[in-house]
Structure formats: C-alpha cells, structure tokens
C-alpha cells in the first residue's frame, strides 16, 4: 500500500468518526473531540496529497448501486500530481481551521449540526481534487456545498443577515453545480466513459467544445468568486463562523481554480484564442474590482472576502496568460505563468487562513469586526497581532512573504512574454502590457488595504470599549495562526522546493532551485533568493539603524504636543484615522465606480446655529455589480413568483383539475 492509498482509505474512516463524535459527545467536550478528529482528517488529506505529489499511485473505488439488483458504475478516487497540490492545500487549511475551531467554536457554532457538517465539508473538499471521473467530482462538489451551507447557517438564530447570506450562497452554489453538470454532460456526450482519461481522449470539437468550456468555466468561476458571480462571497464569508470562513476562503474557492486548471490543461487543452481572452478579462476585472471593494470597506471579514476575489482573479489572470502564450508557442514563459498560478494558490491558502483566523480571534475577543470600532489591539493581543501582520504582509505581496514570491513569478512571466518578436501577435502585444498594469494596480491597492487592516486594527488606541478591554485568546486559537504564519514565511523565504513541486504538478519545465533555497527561472533569465536578499538588506539596514539610534541618543529628548490637541487633551482616540477616513481618498478617486451613499448629519447647539455640537457621518457601500445585474433579475423572479401564486390558490379541486387536465391532454396526444 502506498501513502496515497493509506490516505485515501483513512479519510472516510476519520470523516465517519468525526461525524459520529459530533453527534455522540456532549456539549462540554464536543468541540475538543470533533475538532481534533477533523484536524486529523485534514492531515490525512494532506498526506494523500503528498503521496500523490511524490508520484505514488493510489486509488480507492466505491461500487455504487443496489447490491444484486442494479450496478450503476464505480466512483473512483485517484489523485494525480495537480490534484495532489490541492489535496495538500485543502488538508492543511482544513486541519488548521478545525484546530482553531476547538477553541473558537462555542454556542451556536459548536452545536451537533455544526460539528457534524464539518467533516462532510472537509471530506467533500478532499474528494474533488482526488476524483478520477466526472461523477465522483460532482458528488464531492455537492458534499462540499452541503457541508458548507449547514456550517454557514450555524448562527442564523442570533443574526438575521446569516439567513440572507445562506440563501445567496445556496442559490449561487446551485448555479455553479448546474453549469458544471451541463458542461460535463457535453464532454461525456462525445466521450466513451466518464473518467478524465476517457474525456481527455476524445474531446468534443467546434461549437460543442466552446459550449462545454463556457459552461465549465462559468461553474468554476462561480465557486471561485470571480466578478460578476462573486456576490455570495462578501455575504457568506463575513457571516460564517471564522474557522469556516477560513476553510471556505482558503480552500474551497481554490477548487474553482483546480477545476479551471483541469479543464484547460487536461480536458480541453487546445482551445481557440477567445477562451483565453475571456478568462483574462474575467480575471483582470475580478482582481481590480475585488481589491477596490476591499480597500474601501471597513468590515474586516467582508474586506478579506473581497481580497479573496482579488487573489482568485490574479490566479485566473495567470492561467489565461499561460493559455495565450502556449497558443503562440511560447511554452517556456507559459510554464512560468502556470507555476505562478500554483504558487498564488498555495500562498493565498496560507495567508488567507491566517487572516481569517486572526479576524476570528479579534471577533472572539471583542465581538467586533468593524475596523472603525477596533484599534490598539497590538498591545492587548500581541500574539494575534503578530500572526495577522505576517498574513497581511503576504496579502500585500511584500518581501519575505509567500505573496511576494508568487506575484514576482507572475510578473516575470508577464514582462518576459514576447510581444514583438516572431512568436508574438497583436492580441498578446496588447494583452500583456495591460495585464502588467492591472497586476500593478492590484498590488498597490492591496498594499493600502492591508496597511489599513494592520494600522487601524492593531495600532493606535482602541476606538470602542470592546477594543480597549480585549484579552488575548488561549493557545488553542493562537497556535494554529502561528503555524499558518510560519507557512507564509517559510514559503516566502525558501520558495525553491515549493516552486519545483508546483512545476511538477502542472507539467512545467524551466524552474530550478537557486542559491539558498531560492528559485531561478532560466527561461526568462530571472532569479530570486529571498534568504540572500534578507541577509543583504540586513547588512545594509543594521548599520544605518545602529548609527541613527546612537545619534538620536546624543540629542536631548523633546516632548512635542500635537497642535490639534489645543494644549488640552494630548491624544484622544477620536483624533485618529478610522478605516473609513483612511480609505476616503480612494473613495473619492473611484467615486464613479463605487458610488457610495453618504449621510452627513450636523447637529447645532441650541444657543447658536454657528456652533456645531455633533457631526455624524455615515457611508454605505453597495456592490454595484449586485445592484446593476442581480436586482433586476431578482425583481423579475419575484414578479413571476407572484403570478405563479395564482395557479396555487389552495383549492383541492383546482389541484385535482390540473392532474385531470394533464391526463386528458396526454391521452389526446397519444390518440392523435
């Protein structure tokens, strides 16, 4: 038995144990026992992925049907290297989230239903990348949707927004499933069987290939939260319990990328040019729109959800660029872009886990996720603050973090794509520079966004009593964050071997280790060695810092009062920047795209209209895509629903009449 076999076999066993434990154990110990079993399930998934990445064959098949009566076929789990990467991602994220859940889950988030749904969710997520055929894939996809919907529903009793979020999520996840079902049906129609090998062996051609591609890409884009089908993300992620948000955002949406990679690399590898252009537009718009919304929102978890849309957009952009370059024969650069996609997946999984767990830790300690009411948490919750800051570093793609490495590789592929030489054509000559601009704008806005997160939440002074009275959470919650932060730094400092694994997973060549565990891209003549860079930077920075400090010691210390304290109060929390005011310049610049609604209430003193007693400022952001695209559709559905109500008026005779009329019509048609 190989490692893959052992992993595949232990997953259903552990999932079953976790499910039973969730139902059987009483309230006081349920989180500890079920959480631990789920963490083990995550580790088993990760081990399966490692086995698959090492190239160890392994498979698990279930015969389906009714024994002795009907045989419906086999469900097969047989992960390849690409699936292996995603298995590791799902497993590690699932394990960290479950571990965090041990300390975090309480009350409504630790009920029997919630903990019983978790292994279903996790096992469903691990079936998807391991599936060897379309039917198993779709089965895993639905298990994942089912488990996550139940988990999202946990806090419905206390917060009415949860119910609306569940409805949006359920509708969008069904849309995704229907599109996938239709897409795979088109593929299966032209193939002999449902396994990936059979589908890849005889792909459809012409219009049916494009139909299959559009359906599948639409389904996967919905799960990946790309604009304009991202609407469920900013609702579901904030309302889910934080450890579930982490698993959804860091692992589940990635399976949309897995699906896109599966389709473009394996099932329909040689598509027409416009497929790549379509994906490029989808990815680029998602990246910019996602980070723009993230930069102006002050709800921490909503911000992280929009940042997910941005990162998934970058991944799809990378994939589209790779497809485009491949179709013009620039395989070496295309390979670099593909490796960038996988690195972005791994990096985003690591840092988004840390950030969502950090948000959960803050929420647990303060009951707040509105940045405008946080502040000063670095002193009250130092361990959470440190881990979250490292996550923010990666989200802003700054050096020594995993995000930097991933975006660096992506930019290498973009700037080294041949736009003028013999292999280039007009589309690439236009698309690549625009994409560079999009990635640059995205990176800039991401920097602003995460400076806001760290600066407003952790620095300065508390803006509410909840923030000033916060306490650090126990080790069961901080340690998973630290592990995640360690992964972020590890991937950022020693990216060499991860890049090699990523290259092997997508069948790319031209990636080599370099220097102290750095990464070299000989095909584009680029080299990144973060450890050496850090040592060099330290060699420059430390002497400067030492000299500066020594020089400062010599001068006498002066106390300067802030001019706007008017000599009275030295510093008051209300004088600080808030998240809203920090983002105000951005809101002004992108006013036409964001269209915020603002309310300004000025209350004057009773004595004089010239003296202001109080100013209240409220700013509300409504997703413009949602307003423009979804609201008309929803209104139409309401109208149709109201019309349909006339058919169903509660009269038994009317219902009988329907079936009688149907019977007579059928008989008449038959007689004809």
């Amino acid at each position, binding site marked *: 038995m190989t490692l893959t076999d052992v992993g595949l076999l232990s997953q259903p066993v552990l999932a079953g144990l976790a499910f039973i434990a969730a139902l059987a154990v009483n309230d006081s110990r349920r989180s500890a026992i079920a959480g631990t079993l789920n963490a083990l399930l995550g580790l088993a998934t990760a081990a399966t992925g490692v086995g698959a990445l090492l190239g160890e064959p392994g498979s698990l098949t279930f015969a389906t049907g009714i024994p002795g009566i009907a045989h419906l076929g086999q469900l097969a789990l047989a992960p390849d290297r690409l699936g292996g990467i995603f298995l590791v991602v799902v497993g590690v994220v699932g394990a960290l989230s479950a571990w965090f859940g041990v300390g975090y889950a309480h009350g409504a988030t630790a009920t029997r239903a919630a903990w019983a749904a978790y292994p279903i969710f996790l096992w469903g997520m691990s079936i998807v990348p391991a599936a060897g055929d379309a039917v198993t894939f779709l089965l895993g996809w639905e298990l994942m949707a089912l488990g996550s919907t139940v988990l999202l529903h946990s806090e419905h009793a206390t917060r009415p927004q949860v119910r609306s979020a569940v409805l949006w999520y359920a509708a969008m996840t069904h849309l995704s499933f229907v599109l996938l079902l239709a897409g795979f049906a088109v593929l299966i129609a032209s193939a002999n069987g449902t396994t990936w090998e059979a589908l890849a062996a005889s792909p459809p051609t012409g219009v049916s290939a494009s139909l299959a591609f559009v359906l599948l890409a639409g389904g996967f884009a919905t799960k990946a939260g790309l604009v304009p089908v991202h609407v469920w993300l900013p609702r579901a992620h904030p309302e889910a319990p934080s450890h579930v948000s982490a698993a959804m955002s860091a692992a589940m949406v990635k399976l949309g990328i897995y699906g896109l990679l599966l389709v473009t690399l394996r099932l329909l590898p040689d598509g027409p040019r416009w497929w790549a252009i379509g994906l490029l537009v989808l990815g680029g718009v998602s990246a910019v729109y996602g980070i723009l919304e993230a930069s102006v929102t002050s709800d921490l978890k909503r911000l992280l959800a929009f940042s997910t849309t941005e990162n998934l957009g970058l991944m799809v952009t990378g994939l589209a660029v790779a497809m485009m370059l491949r179709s013009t024969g620039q395989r070496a650069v295309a390979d670099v872009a593909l490796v960038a996609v996988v690195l972005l997946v791994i990096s985003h999984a690591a840092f988004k886990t840390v950030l969502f767990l950090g948000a959960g830790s803050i929420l647990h300690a303060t009951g707040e996720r509105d940045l405008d009411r946080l502040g000063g948490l670095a002193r009250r919750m130092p361990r959470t603050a440190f881990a979250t800051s490292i996550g923010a570093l990666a989200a802003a793609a700054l050096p020594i973090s995993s995000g930097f490495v991933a975006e660096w590789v992506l930019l290498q592929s973009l700037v080294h794509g041949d736009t003028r030489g013999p292999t280039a054509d007009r589309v690439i000559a236009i698309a690549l520079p625009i994409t560079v601009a999009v990635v640059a704008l995205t990176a800039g806005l991401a920097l602003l966004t995460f400076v806001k997160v760290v600066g407003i939440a952790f620095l300065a002074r508390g803006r509410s009593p909840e923030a000033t009275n916060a306490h650090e959470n126990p080790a069961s919650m901080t340690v998973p964050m630290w592990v995640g932060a360690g992964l972020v730094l590890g991937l950022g400092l020693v990216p060499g071997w991860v890049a090699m694994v990523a290259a092997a997973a997508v069948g790319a060549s031209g990636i080599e280790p370099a220097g102290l565990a750095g990464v070299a891209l000989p095909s584009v003549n680029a080299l990144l060695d973060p450890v050496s860079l850090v040592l060099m930077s330290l060699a420059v920075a430390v002497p400067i810092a030492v000299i500066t400090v020594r020089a400062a010691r010599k001068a006498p210390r002066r106390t300067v009062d802030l001019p706007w304290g008017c000599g009275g109060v030295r510093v008051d929390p209300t004088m600080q920047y808030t998240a809203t005011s920090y983002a105000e310049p951005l809101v002004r610049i992108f006013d036409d795209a964001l269209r915020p609604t603002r309310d300004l209430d000025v209350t004057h003193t009773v004595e004089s209209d010239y003296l202001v007693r109080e100013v209240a400022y409220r700013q509300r952001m409504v997703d413009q895509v949602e307003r423009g695209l979804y609201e008309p559709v929803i209104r139409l559905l309401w109208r149709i629903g109201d019309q349909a109500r006339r058919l169903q008026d509660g009269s*038994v005779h009317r219902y009988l009449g329907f079936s*009688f009329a149907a*019977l*007579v019509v059928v*008989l*008449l048609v038959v*007689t004809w």
Partner: protein
Amino acid sequence: MTESLFAQTVATATGLLMLTAVLQVWRRSTDASTRLLAVQGAALALLVGAIGLAEGHAELVAVAVVVFALKGVLLPWVLARTIARSGIHREDSSAVNPVSGLLAAAGLATLAYAVSRPLVALDAGPAAHAVPAGLTLVLVGFLVLLTRHRAVSQVIGFLVIDNGIATVAFLTAGGVPLVVELGVLLDVVLVVLILRILSARLELAHGELDLHDLRELHD
C-alpha cells in the same frame, strides 16, 4: 363455462360497470351513490370470477370473493354509516349540473374508446373489448373527484377510479398477481378508513364536510 356464457357474463359485467359509473355523475343523492358503488363492486367481482372460471385459475376466484366482500359489501357499508352519522344525504354543491356531467362522461367514454383502440386490436377475445370500460371508469371517477365537494363524494370518486384500474388490470393481464392485488385492496381499505376518520374530523372542525373549507390551509 362455455365460450358464449363467458362472453355474455363479461359483457354484462362491463355494461354494469359503465352504467354505474355514468349514473354516479347523474345522481345527487349520496345514499344512491353508495348503492351504485356496491353494484359496481359486485360487477367487478363478477368480472373477476368469470375470468377466473374461464381460465381455470382457482386463486382468481378467491380474489373475486375478496373483491366482492370488500368492494361490494364492506366499503359501501362504511360509507353508508358515515353518511348516516353526518346526516348529509345530498350532494348539493356540485360544480356542474347533471346534464353537462352526463355529456362530459360521454365525451370521456369516447376518449377512452379512442385511446384503447391499439389495446383492443391486440386480442380478439371478449375480455379485450371490455378494456375501454375500465379506462372510462378511471376518467369518470376523476370527473366525480373534480366536480363534487363533499368528502363522502370524494371517497366515492376515488373508489370508482380504483375499480377502473382493477378492471383494466384484470382484463389485460388476466389478473395481476394475487399478492399485488391483495396488497392494493388492503391499501384501498386503509385509505377509505383514513378518509372516513378525516371526514369525521373535518365535520367536527367545520361542522360540514365541504372541501371548500380546506382552502384556508394554503400558504
């Protein structure tokens, strides 16, 4: 049993089935409807018995006895008791008048004959010629369900449909397997008992047995 006697028995039984079904549409008195149902049950039993004797199946004859006991005696008796207890002897809230009801029944009978032509063509025997009668019963039973409002009339319409299904089954397949037929009969008995309880409850709650009162239940 000789060939001609068999043919005449089948013809008489199917004729009775058709006649009782059409009369169900015409008559307004629930007492009369119950008596018609008893006659219909007896006709069905006669049909089953004739087929059993002609083909020499002993268990079909047994089924005929059970059918007579249930559909000819037990169910009409239960209905008659319900009617006596509720004191409602007339169906005065029918949606169509007797003449249009009869016309509709004639139309449905025509449709049934038109539809079952291919079935009749399969077999030249007298049994096959009676298949349209069974279909007519199903359609007319549906019509009764649709046009009557009293709970008791609903039960009667339902039983007419069931008689139609049984007729077609016996005529085309030479009788469904004994176990299945007995199971179906048991189901029908249970349904009628449940409906009887339901109608009693309905009467307690609303003081009347009109299905229009159930309209309030819709969401």
